[in-house]
């Protein structure tokens, strides 16, 4: 096997595993309300699936599937969603991040779900972004 060429078994196994890892990550984020888990844990799991893919196919292959600008924008979007939710609460007349003010039923629960999703988005994107910067620097 030439250097730079990757083993077919490793490639196939990594590719096969990735969707399951991502699905599990989503489950961990969405199910954080009633089982161990939450935004950070799920976000790291999803980000690790990208790293797994990079280990199998090489990072150049993975890099082709997303744009760098979109990655940075996603990182921002998560924190903005979080901080913005707080601002919405502030505008509804409650204290910052007081979800009870949200005009939905079970407002606290919904607010927390939104926050977990926001954390998940940011952590996923931020870890991929850090990984990208570390790997592509030369």
């Amino acid at each position, binding site marked *: 096997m030439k250097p730079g060429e990757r083993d077919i078994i490793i490639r196939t196994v990594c590719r096969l595993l990735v969707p399951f890892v991502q699905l599990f990550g989503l489950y961990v984020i969405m199910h954080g309300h009633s089982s161990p888990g939450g935004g950070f844990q799920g976000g790291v799991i999803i980000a690790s699936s990208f790293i797994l893919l990079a280990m199998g196919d090489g990072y150049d292959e993975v890099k082709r599937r997303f744009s760098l*600008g979109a990655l*940075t*924008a996603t*990182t*921002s979007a998560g*924190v*903005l969603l979080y*901080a*913005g939710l*707080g*601002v919405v609460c*502030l505008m509804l007349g*409650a*204290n*910052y*991040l*007081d*979800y*009870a003010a949200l005009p939905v039923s079970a407002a606290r629960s919904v607010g927390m779900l939104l926050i977990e999703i926001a954390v998940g988005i940011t952590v996923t994107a931020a870890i991929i972004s850090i990984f990208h910067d570390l790997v592509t620097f030369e």
Partner: protein
Amino acid sequence: MSSNQSALPVIIVLTPLLISFVLPVLGWWRRAAVFPTALAALAVSFGASLAAAHRVSTHGPIRYYMGGWEPPWGIELHIDGLSALMLLLIGFVTVMVGVYSKRSVLREIPSREVPFYSVYLLLVGGLAGLVSTADMFNLYVFLEIVSLTSYALVSIGGGPAVVSAFRYVILGTVGAAFYLLSVAYLYSVTGTLNMADLATILPALYDSNAVLVGFAFFVIGMSIKMALFPMHAWLPGAYSNAPSAVSALIAGTTTKVAAYVLIRVMFFVFEPSFSIEQIPVTALLAWMGAIAMVLGSVMAIAQTNLKRMLAYSSVAQIGYIVLGVGLANTAGFTGSVLHLVNHAVMKGGLFLVAGAIVYQTGTRDIRQFARLSVTMPWTAAAFTTFAFAMIGIPPTGGFFSKLYLILGAIDAGQWVFVFVIVLSSVLALTYLMNVIRYMYFATPASPAPPADLRKPEPGQPLPASMLVPMLVTAVGIVLLGLFNGEIVARFIDPVIPASLVR
């Protein structure tokens, strides 16, 4: 709900953070809009700090319950006179450095404008959150935001800056981890993280080993963070290799905020009697401060690199602040807080001047400064003003804070500290007058061009965006001196712990 609730703390903390989240997207869309937006965020935060300071001085401390949960279950933001003063300081320094950084930093890293300002605003948000929070763990989170951004900003200086930044990472993490350890130890015997709640529970536990060790680790951790003498190893490299604007920022805010945390926890979470009588931390701190004052100044005299000289001078000035804390009486406390503010402004200003000199001449070597008074008259004048403040010549701010410290030392009956303050001022006179002598009176000895730094285009005057912040800061240090009575009466006197008054 307490009487003085206001959303001002949220505006102060959240504006820089929110804008820093928006900046990457904004920079992707339109690069030119990044700098004005960042500056606007800084200005809004500073404006809100002014409003908060006014409100604090007229209505008393502002409290804000995050998420509507009352402490100790939720997180409380609490702005009293001391926090308000720190917020004003942070706002002033960051706006000035923000204006200044546009030309000076971006000449070195033109393509990294977006992450630079994003990180800059994160630093400002972290600092504001750190001084306004009333929760020990929340303070740790903001401390780490501040540290992370400082590491990144130091590392962009080019050359050996990355090595200095790595050393800063290692030592800074030890400091923060010690802080976390102390919070954990206090939590293990009190079960709470809220500062006011801790202050009511702790007095019954002052004999507990966990409290004593937790306190010791707190003091060590914060000493590392603010580079008190034996733990200052990270500071000279970080200050002298970082871009000058960043040096000004870190000298003016990051280390000062660590000193603020020391004061806050020593005198407001613990009772002053604990650190004075239970374990003689204050006496130890006073002596360490005194040693730092002398050795820092001596090291500064030995330097020929202007920024390195200023860095060692910072080690000495931190000694003044710690000495005031260690004296543990009213005048010492006032002098310490006042010197914290004064030193942040004057050392920040001095680094701005150093940056301007490097920008124009490309050299940091003091011996090459001949005729600067002719080529850069305003810069030389600003340097002279800051130098007078450092030495302690009235009417600049430095005079009054040193006066309070001397009064505190006399109150404590410690004449040796009076002597050390005077000695350190004389040493400061020596190294600063040396620079002024080269600037005003020396003739160029060797026309050898400096080879170490990028040569600027000759004949260009200093950009106004760099000159104006420098001059405003110089005016600021004089105003701090003229209005020191006002500052003390409005912000410092109301917060002096009752058991400290002699």
